[in-house]
């Protein structure tokens, strides 16, 4: 059975391929998630705006040649974003403190657990920042953006197997480096 929302998105993409002036609807749909992802990586508003502009401008120029591979359109935008961020990382390191971005509030746990969890989260994500670039990107797309492995593969220009390997290595390294990890129950 076809997914109506995917069909609708395919229709919008086809319209935009034939007439780029129809791209506005796709922009409206995907701006927030792309901006959020970019911000999560560069953690500075002006830089996030620059990169987000670059992503959508590149997408608009390339849309006449976009080819549906069966993955969500957003995966393609993430792919452009991943590359744009990688280019920026070569010259710009994230400057803002980690806790300014990651919302450490978690619904439900008792206060003492919450405090412990905040520490763990801060520590874990601090360790994520020290991971090799591709492991870091794979973890963010999986655990923060909640993307499917196949879509992350598209976004990163890799096979699904390679993405799983990156996640496995990243999580394994985090485990090794966060020996006192204690998740909130």
């Amino acid at each position, binding site marked *: 059975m076809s997914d109506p929302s995917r069909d609708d998105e395919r229709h919008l993409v086809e319209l935009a391929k034939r007439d780029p002036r129809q791209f506005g609807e796709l922009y409206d749909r995907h*701006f927030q998630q792309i901006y959020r992802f970019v911000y999560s990586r560069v953690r500075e*508003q002006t830089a996030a705006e620059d990169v987000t502009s670059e992503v959508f401008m*590149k997408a608009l120029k390339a849309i006449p040649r976009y080819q549906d591979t069966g993955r969500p359109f957003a995966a393609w935008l993430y792919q452009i974003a991943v590359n744009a961020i990688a280019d920026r990382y070569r010259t710009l390191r994230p400057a803002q403190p980690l806790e300014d971005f990651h919302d450490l509030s978690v619904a439900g746990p008792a206060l003492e657990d919450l405090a412990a969890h905040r520490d763990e*989260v801060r520590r874990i994500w601090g360790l994520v920042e020290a991971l090799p670039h591709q492991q870091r990107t794979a973890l963010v797309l999986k655990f923060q953006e909640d993307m499917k492995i196949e879509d992350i593969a598209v976004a990163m220009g890799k*096979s699904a197997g390679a993405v799983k390997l990156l996640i496995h290595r990243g999580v394994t390294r985090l*485990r090794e480096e966060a020996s006192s990890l204690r998740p909130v*129950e």
Partner: protein
Amino acid sequence: MNSYHDPELEDILQDDELRRVAAVLSSVRSPEPPLDDAFRTSLRRQLMQQAWAMSEGRNSWWRRAFAPPGLAWAGAAAGLVLIASVVVWGALQQPGGFQQVFVQSAIDGKSSVALQQPILVSFNQPMDHQTTQAAVQITPATNVTFAWDQNSRTLAVQPASGNLAPNTQYQVTIGPGAKTQAGQKLAAPQTITFVTQPPASPAPVPSPRPSPSNALGEKQLASLNGATTLSAQWSADSSSIYFVDGKGQLAVAPAKGGAITVITPDGASSPAISPAGDRLAYIRGGKIEVLTFAAGKTDEIKATPAATLVGWAKDKLVWAAADGIYTEAPNGQSQLAPLPSSGEVTVLSIAPDGVHAIYRQDQKLFVLDLSTAKSTQLGQAKAAFAGWSPGGAFLLYSTADAIVVADPQGVTQATLPAGEASWSTQDAILLGGDTELDQVRSDGTGFTRVANGTYHSPLWAPNGTSFGFVRGDTLLVAAAPTLPPEPTALDEAGGVVNNFMQARLKNQSGEAARLLDDSGKKAYAEGGLKLLVNGDPHFSRYYVLTQDLVATAPDTVRVVVRLVLTHGKLDVTSYEETLTLVRDAGTKQFLIDKATAGTHRNLGKGAEVVSVEVAGDAVKVTFDSDLDPGTVGGGLVILDSKGRQLDTTASYANRTVTLSGLDLKEGAQYRLVVLTTVRDILGHNVAAEYDLDLVGPAVKKHGNRRDAGTPAASPGPSPNAGAASGG
């Protein structure tokens, strides 16, 4: 929290500790980041401005290529709506019993009907087979067979020859003698009219589909250790790549994979292989070092001022320094050309032939002729250098949204889609980037998607079979598929004729005149030819009868195109124009140089020629009607340029007369004559003698190959680009 479960990760997170880490990672919520609504709105506005600019420029070549299918689908959709409307309307006319017999067909009124199909005629009531079949009249004269569906409501009228005639308007009339099974007659004759498409052209070369990246045989060669740009060169035999990584290490990686050999551990830049492939020059510590492979010896050349970039002019070193371009001299070094002394000047590249160099002065890009020391600006401010043709005779630079192919005088030769470019010895230009890898010929033709994915800094191997590229922090190598064959001169000229005729059909005289050179304009202005054919009957469609390459210096193509004039829905007259197209020496584009028109022929008065194929030993002439075979022998003759009749053997099948036993000479003039003794199956003679001038077939010639080495192998047959049906 430690019971993290994700089916996608089950196989890699089997350990409790790993799942606990994943649980923590997934427990973090991403809050909405600070967002300035003005930014969101402003970006949307910028995107829409860009989108409008793109839409206005959609007549560029690669977008045009995508337009016809869209129009075809729109037409098909409109047709379906129309058919559905007729069906609904028909159904509404039959309350409580059928009042009237209606006839309809999905192809009624269509202008490009496929040849290999029966003519389906539908009725709103079950019909009596015998009286209905007897009431069918079809023009042009055609032997047909009949078949019915189970409900006796749809009649299939099938030409006995198997196919419909090409380029032909058919009228199928169901006369009043047709009865329903209830005995009711048609109130009046009802006619279905349609036009068939041109004869089948040779199958076009399929455009390669984007390959999954592994289909390109991608191999990782080396880590670039943080290098932000690729500084690399292939070995002359295409077996390995010399590259400088982010730490300044110069190394060589075998293209087939394997161990990397370090040449110098740090501080290296600008590797350059000599044209003979026997030496490698690079800069280290402000000095030029030259490694001679055979001897394994490194020589050092001290350049003053210090060298910033090194290249080769044949077997001599050429290098850039702060104040000019230098080369070796018996007493040390000599300056080939000075660089500007004002502004911030950076030399970006020395041409493969060592004749030119590219430099940036502040925001502007220049090409410097090393023999005259003259500089020419390339494009506008902020243009960026993108590469050389393999021999150095052409260069590439990028603008905000395109790659420009230019000669060293800065004259634009072609414009290509944007991307990171590399030009192969096979005249294929790779265009890499974040999301895709494309390939295009240097004249802008043959654009194909090679793969989706990230392909930065593509770099062709000299043999043109593989290329290096960068993904992330890694140097990789892959093999690219070959481009489809170049369009032939006939294809290119056919495209111009098609555009010319389409413009005339749309009454766009300016657009049509743009495809005429001065002599061609004179032919239409003073030669009695009409550029716009107005009035009644009106110009409704056209098709190409023959197209021949008649000369190659410059390329000259002669095309005979038939214009059909229509009154109401019916084709009533046709005449032919003979167009001679010559390739312009400057732009390389074909323009119409000469034009003559033939006499008008009334249609519907006997068989007409609708297609002619010329081979060296035979000429195939296809008619719109089934012929009386007994009238074919002697009814068609071939004359040479002196009016002498050539000996031929005529055979006839399926509306086509084949005149064989010929030995036509390449480029020689001949004339096909169809005499009025030829009759169709209804006994109508050809209304008036028909003459068509022919040219002995020539070897098809390829178009605009630039500075790309050995020409490609001969291509397959070309598609019949000009044989489009108009209207």
